[in-house]
């Protein structure tokens, strides 16, 4: 009996490590390694040396870097008030707002790009001194639009679980609200900010559609250059050289970000208490800011989806929505069926991401130092790797038994889950770290084995973070376009973003209207799914209260 239990314990521990390692190795490290080896064989290293000496290349690297840094800083600043509102105040519709901010995340860049251009036009920003069209400003605005949710949710969730008493203590000691924030809240919040910022940075660092559509033809990042060389020029060697630079930069960035997150692991007991109601002014200010950044582009989409006809002939109608149920000749299946596919992929991908990311988080927090750091680094990489590298890598690596996945239906959700795992980890790890060791000790004293203590103490507390991460990977999967387009698919596997792309690829008002309607449905679906997933997480958290 005792031996059996020991065996179960050891195999559980082995599985915790083996599942994430296996997943990462088979679906990321091996494919990416294969494509890099192939590219280096084709002269990638010589190309790399040549590139490093070129001013235009250094310009691309510099631009990639600084636009990502500035985008990240802006996203953090814009998200901050909202994170505070969600974490420290109560108001009606809180859950809805929390879900709604996730919406931009799934919108395909083609659609958002169009909405931004229309907005610039409407507000007179398409020309003149305040011109945003085809400028870096447009790129930054779009990056903020897409990424505010990451900061808002990651920081907000962590903040919510943070003990309020130190702030109150600071206030009693005479600190103004700002001083209390600056000296007591911020230092403890830092791990979550670093976690969120590192994800946003990687997203912006590997941004593709936004750069091409909104930045205009003169802006290039490492990601767009890799794509141009690999796909348009068929120059694998140069693409590989660029991919190596991208991966090295990403690794360096992740190492720095991870050390920032570790620097201050704050042991806190999550306290449940009644939060003050949000004042009307605070609420209005926040909603105003979010409406400005997120609401306007979305409003343009909704307006377009409800309009048929052009210019003066335009009328309101729901025809575009009705049309979603019928297959157009251009698409193998109807838009609704594509939505169903996307949902199914998203469920599978989010499930995989939660399992792999959850286990990996446990290893990161409780594992040995080296293992922990390697996990922390390795599982972040897929977020910073080019869709081209991953997609092509999978095609050449997973081509023979026992890893013949090239035409497997699992490959698309797996590719989505790769991007989802870092989200789960970035929300779960800070939370796991913040669980007071005393709670585990208390459980141990009450007779719980370490594994049992982890399940009864960590899991309920981490459930909310797990749900937030899961919801994000769900949303990532719903909106994913890049990697999906590189993987061979059966026509009946068409996803909603791919369908959107096809609809927008042919002229015709009806097609465009349908594409807009599909975007809106995708948004609503995302918000609803996030609401449900997080509702589950919250119930789990409450049930698990000690």
């Amino acid at each position, binding site marked *: 009996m005792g031996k059996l239990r020991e065996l179960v314990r050891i195999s559980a521990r082995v599985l915790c490590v083996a599942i994430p390692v296996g997943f990462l190795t088979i679906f990321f490290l091996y494919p990416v390694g294969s494509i890099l080896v192939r590219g280096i064989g084709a002269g990638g290293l010589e190309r790399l040396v040549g590139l490093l000496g070129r001013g235009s290349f250094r310009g691309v690297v510099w631009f990639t870097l600084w636009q990502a840094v500035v985008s990240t800083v802006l996203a953090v600043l814009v998200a901050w008030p909202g994170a505070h509102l969600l974490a420290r105040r109560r108001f009606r519709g809180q859950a809805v707002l929390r879900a709604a901010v996730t919406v931009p995340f799934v919108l395909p860049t083609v659609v958002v790009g169009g909405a931004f251009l229309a907005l610039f036009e409407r507000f007179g920003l398409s020309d003149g001194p305040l011109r945003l069209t085809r400028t870096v400003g447009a790129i930054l605005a779009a990056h903020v639009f897409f990424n505010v949710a990451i900061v808002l949710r990651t920081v907000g969730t962590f903040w919510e679980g943070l003990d309020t*008493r130190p702030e109150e203590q600071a206030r009693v000691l005479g600190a103004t*609200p700002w001083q209390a924030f600056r000296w007591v809240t911020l230092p403890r919040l830092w791990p979550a900010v670093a976690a969120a910022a590192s994800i946003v940075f990687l997203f912006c660092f590997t941004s593709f559609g936004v750069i091409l559509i909104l930045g205009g033809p003169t802006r290039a990042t490492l990601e767009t250059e890799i794509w141009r060389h690999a796909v348009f020029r068929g120059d694998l060697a140069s693409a590989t050289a660029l991919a190596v630079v991208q991966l090295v930069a990403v690794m360096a960035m992740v190492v720095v970000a991870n050390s920032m997150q570790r620097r201050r692991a704050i*042991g806190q007991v999550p306290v449940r208490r009644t939060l003050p109601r949000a004042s009307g002014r605070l609420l209005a200010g926040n909603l105003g800011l979010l409406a400005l950044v997120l609401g306007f582009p979305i409003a343009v989409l909704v307006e377009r989806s409800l309009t048929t006809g052009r210019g003066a002939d335009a009328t309101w109608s729901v025809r575009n929505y009705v049309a979603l149920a019928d297959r157009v000749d251009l698409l193998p299946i109807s838009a609704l069926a594509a939505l169903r596919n996307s949902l199914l992929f998203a469920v599978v991908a989010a499930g995989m991401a939660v399992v792999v990311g959850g286990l990996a988080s446990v290893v990161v927090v409780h594992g040995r130092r080296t293992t922990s750091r390697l996990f922390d680094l390795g599982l972040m990489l897929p977020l910073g790797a080019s869709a081209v590298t991953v997609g092509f890598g999978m095609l050449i690596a997973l081509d023979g038994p026992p890893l013949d996945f090239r035409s497997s239906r699992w490959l698309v959700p797996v590719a989505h889950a790769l991007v989802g795992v870092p989200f789960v980890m970035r929300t779960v790890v800070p939370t796991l770290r913040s669980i007071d060791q005393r709670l585990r000790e208390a459980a141990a004293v009450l007779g719980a084995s370490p594994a049992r203590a982890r399940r009864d103490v960590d899991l309920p507390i981490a459930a909310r973070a797990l749900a937030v991460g899961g919801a994000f990977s769900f949303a990532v999967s719903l909106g994913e376009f890049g990697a999906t387009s590189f993987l061979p698919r059966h026509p009946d596997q068409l996803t909603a973003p791919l369908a959107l792309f096809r609809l927008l690829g042919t002229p015709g008002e009806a097609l465009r209207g349908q594409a807009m309607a599909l975007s809106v449905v995708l948004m609503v679906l995302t918000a609803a799914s996030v609401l449900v997933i997080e509702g589950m997480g919250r119930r789990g958290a409450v049930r698990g209260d000690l």
Partner: protein
Amino acid sequence: MSLRVDGLSVAFDGVSVLDGVDLEVAEGEVLVLLGPSGCGKSTLLRAIAGLERPSAGRILWDDKDLTEVATHGRGFGLMFQDHALFPHRDVAGNVEFGLRVAGMPADQRSHRVARALEMVGMEGFGGRRIDTLSGGEAQRVALARSVAAGPRLLMLDEPFGSLDRVLRERLTEDLGVLLRRLGQAVVHVTHDHDEAFALADRIAVLGDGRILRIGNPAEVWADPGTVHAAECLGHENLVVLDGSGCCPLGRLGDGPGTVLVRGDRLVIGAPADGQPAAAQVSAGRSVGPVSGLVVRTSIRGGRTVVVLDVGGLCLRASSDGSTSVGDRVGVSVADGGVVPLSG
């Protein structure tokens, strides 16, 4: 230089937690708020500190209304139950916090920090990390932090809540000395009546969001007023009277109700043969002796406490240690030992 709380009420989501509390604390006075957990003690402190918004009432300092003044503008200190030390700062960083936010230059700060640490007997601990402190040390650091900021009113919320008894008693004594030396207005919250009596100039007993009894310790002890207050103060012999005011000790009242039989006024003597006296005993007059059986003895704080069974009524009394379990004894109540209670 005094605090006045005027008809203070606090409600959470419509549920009343404090209901019309009136208080006054003068400079140099230690007021102890005594009450069971959940009676609103902490909420009262938080409201005074400005951390909770009152639904009614005012908080005044020297007749100046502070109700609308933000927490940091009140100049009050509050030491939290679990100390709430800042985990990301070391001991000195915690203690100097209040001085720092007040804009005191660094050199003066370090001087004041050293003095505050010295005051609580923690010299040289300035560089220690918070998570390396023991419970007693953390408590002292928290106290030093609250004191160093120089608040005009010091509030302590169950400062010894999580400590063991011995440590608690020692620290209580130290705290008493320290508080006298500071000479500030102090509000101290506890559920421990021993601690309350050790520290208080005045005691306020709080129950269900109201002040049940307020006065100096001796007064309050002798006449708690209500059953609830008597329980809070640590009285054990609360005797329920039947419809005609009787109980196994005799007729202690005019009708149904509860009276307090003070343990310190119970006298144990030679076995009495008698039945309970049928005559009515008015409060203040002596009772008995009545026959009782020693059920249990124990030693508490060096004194022997005996548990007596008097006709099915369970009473606790202190004794000189000459009785043992199984003895039949005569039990009488000295003058003033029976106190009628309301509620």
